[in-house]
């Protein structure tokens, strides 16, 4: 568990936002991706995340996680507690992600059976989030400036007019050779994204299943990532979403990691 942002809720910059401009002026691909990236989703969020992992045989594993996120300006802090399965209950993770690009994230884990908080350091950006089909980058950590963007075409997907944008990483060694995103015009969230692996082969597809308006923010509450090469699917569902509900700063401490859910 490395890497930053648990932006489940901001999912992937694919995030929504309602009142996007009526801007009729011609936008560049980069401008569109910035609009997607910078959509406001509130300062704080509290939610229950249900992660369902479905393997090639159709076997399902379900994990329920309670998570808290707060933006402190130059640092974003999140803490998450496992609710189930029972044998990992109260296992917790904390992540501090800094705006300063030269500063690595700080990460901690707490295993209740070991009764110890441990720091974790890691170097891989392309790591998969908790054994799912999402990488941390997929969850919204990747900045628009890291890729070159191009508008391929405009088309309607699921009744929504979309820009189809191709993004090619500037770093040739990145785990994807390109991604293609369908961005809803005016709402500025991605409806769908196709990923191509290092060798240019089709790898996986992200789809938004459900978007809810909570406190005036468009929050994506259900997404699904299907890895075609492994035939493996991860479904993430957010419930009990509370925006700006007043999470205490003391929530993001080792003490809270140890205390666990009450």
């Amino acid at each position: 568990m490395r890497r930053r942002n648990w932006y489940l809720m901001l999912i992937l910059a694919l995030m929504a936002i309602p009142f996007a401009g009526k801007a009729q002026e011609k936008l560049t691909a980069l401008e569109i991706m910035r609009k997607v990236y910078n959509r406001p989703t509130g300062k704080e969020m509290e939610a229950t995340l249900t992660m369902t992992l479905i393997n090639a045989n159709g076997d399902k594993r379900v994990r329920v996680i309670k998570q808290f996120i707060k933006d402190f300006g130059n640092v974003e802090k999140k803490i998450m507690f496992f609710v189930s399965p029972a044998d990992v209950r109260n296992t917790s993770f904390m992540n501090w992600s800094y705006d300063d690009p030269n500063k690595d994230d700080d990460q901690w884990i707490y295993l209740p059976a070991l009764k110890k908080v441990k720091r974790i350091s890691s170097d891989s950006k392309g790591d998969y989030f908790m054994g799912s089909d999402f990488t941390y980058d997929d969850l919204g950590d990747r900045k628009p400036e890291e890729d070159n963007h191009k508008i391929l075409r405009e088309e309607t997907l699921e009744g929504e007019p979309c820009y189809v944008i191709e993004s090619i990483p500037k770093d040739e060694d990145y785990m994807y050779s390109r991604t293609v995103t369908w961005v809803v015009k005016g709402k500025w969230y991605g409806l769908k994204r196709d990923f191509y692996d290092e060798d240019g082969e089709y790898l996986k597809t992200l789809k938004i299943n459900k978007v809810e308006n909570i406190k005036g923010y468009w929050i994506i509450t259900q997404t699904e990532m299907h890895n075609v090469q492994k035939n493996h699917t991860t479904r993430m569902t957010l419930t009990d979403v509370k925006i700006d509900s007043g999470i205490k700063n003391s929530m993001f401490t080792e003490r809270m990691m140890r205390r666990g859910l009450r």
Partner: protein
Amino acid sequence: METLINRLLKYPKLVLMVTLVITIAFFVVMRKNSRMETNLDKYMPQNHPAFVYSDQAEKWFDIKDGIIIAIQNPDGIYNSRTLQKVKDLTKKLQKMPEIEKKDVTSLYTADNIIGTEDGLDVRAFYKRVPKSPEKLQALREKVRSNEMVFGRLVSTDETVTVIIARIGDDVFSQEFYHRILDLAKQFEGPEKIYVAGRPIVEGTLAYLGPRDMRRMVPIVIFVIIVVLYLVLRNWKSTFFTLLVVLFSTIWAFGLMAALKIPIYSVSTMIPVMLIAIGVAYGVHLYNHLYLHLREHPETDRREAVRDMIHQMWKPVMMAAVTTAIGFISLLTSQVYPIKYFGLFTAFGVMVAFVLSVLLIPAGALAFGLPRPKRKKTEDEEATLTGTEDTFAYRFADRIVRHRGLTVFISLVVVGLSLYGMTKVWINSSFLDKFGKNSDIVRTDRFINEHFGGTSTLNVILEGKAPDTFKQPDVLRELVKMQDDVVESLPVVGNAFSLGDYLKRMNKVMHADSEKYDCIPNSSDLIAQYLLLYEMSGDPDNLWHVVTEDYKKANVTFQLKSDNSKALKSAIAVVEKYRPDFEKMGVQLNYAGSGYKALVFTDLILEGQISSLLLSLVIVIVLLSIMFKKVTIGLIGSVPIVITTLISFGVMGLLGIPLSTTTALISSIAIGIGIDYAVHFIERYRVYAGRTHDKLRTSHLTMHHSGRAILFNAVVVIAGFLVLLFSVFPPNRSLGALVSLNMFTSFVGTVTIMFAILYTSNIYFRRRDLAKTEGKESA
């Protein structure tokens, strides 16, 4: 039948033309549809429970055979050039369309999870190739402290590192094999590159097999031509005899191609069989023809040919039918390539018979009778006139006089053979098929010296409920078994299981303290470690050792040998833990290609025994019917029984293991050996009817048939000895064993079978016997 043959022979040129056209048709089909089957999994019966289970387990845990590429630098691998090669080669392998990216493991792809004072550090060993001495040293330290990598991906003397590319069963091809070898070669120098692993061994086998055949066939044909010419002393006869063999081979392969049955490696033995058998028919027919011409120098073609057909079609047919039945008995084998081998060799034998009785006479009719160059002929002319002191006569006399001794010696030999048979062992090894100093064996030995082993055995443990493999007691038992196998058997170099991950995590979470290099006590902690690993390492690695519901686990043992003894020794140790596992509700099974090969070879042995017994019964019944006497059926089976016993006995005594190729020998012995009995008994019967004198009959039979059999044996043995030039040791033992079988069949026929036949007084009335007894005592 005889009438039919004669009617057909009214149009000899037409017969030749039609045969030629059919042959060309088969040849065209063969060229168009023939396909070599190199996927060894296709050789195994797909619905056998052991294979079904193994295939399932291979899916659960994504078990695949690995190609192992070793990079050796005697000065140590920790320099930027060698590490660059590891990186480049890893990337090149990952880009190959046959290989999935995640299936390539090397120091470059491996994750290093290290415990530090206050936490956990998860990093690749290197991404950019380290250049400075400090960084290289740091890498060395990282590797040394990680027991999941040290000794597995990097040798403990730090001069060799391996890249493992796992590949599916279905992607291997000749072309891919050569591409891998070419790729490896590009990275050669000054580092040495070695390529090994089961897919490579199988690939080399599939590559060398046909190459070996291409090399063997011309030699076989040359030897046959020479021996045939020496025997027949005429080019025309040699030509037609060979034509029969060639055509029957083309028909057999043509039919295989027409039925869309691929060529398996054992199928390449079909031509060798047909050459050995088909030639004998020609030899018999021409022998008779020559004899007839010598006795009646003035006969015209038509009459000579008619006599040959009349006298010979029946014994040749009897020989062909029994031989074919011998091969058809292989249908009882559960192994498809062996079934096909039996079936198509039988077909080829029947074709060789039909073509012999059609082409050889048709050839004589169309192109004139063959007139052999005369050698010293007094010998032959004495045949029926009855000069008493030929070698054959004296030999027959001796056997008759020392019947008791003959029986005694036979019994001693049988006893020795039975003892030898208890020592026969089965070997499913692919590597043992190569010479001890072949490249592939040396590479394998090299990698085995530096790493755990190139062969694998998978032990699959299956619990009743999910999360079985989060229980400390179950996991401890697993680790205990794993350690026991590795420590008690030098041939097992390494093992890998869920236990290794947990021990590693436990140690790492306790600041790398050796004290915690064990399975934790609490199942919750185990679950939490596993969760942590899933989040920090590559979870896909975990699914190679346990299923996602933690109900089934896979323990992989690395062996330094793929031979059956090694596998069985590991299985024997594992089996000790079966009762303990069962008490915990955990079932134990095996999987993997090595295990499948082991089961497969056992099946071959089973198949051999059943096909042997079956063919023995069939042959006895057939002989009883042909000679209208059950006693003859029993006497006729004597050479086969003796031959088979000696064959297996010698294999046991010389330590030649039973394998796919050597296992075929027993039916070959039955098929060809029976010919001898048929010819000998047939002659004995004819002369008995003619002379009513037992001793005289013995003399004539021994002189005539005994010599013909010797002749036959010499031709067949000469043919099979060619196999001694094969590059495959098993093919060499095959050649030697078949030659041995032919020799013992021959000796068994003219000694012990003859002695029994003589003693049985069959074909003689009491009146005749009284006469003989007078002579015998004289």
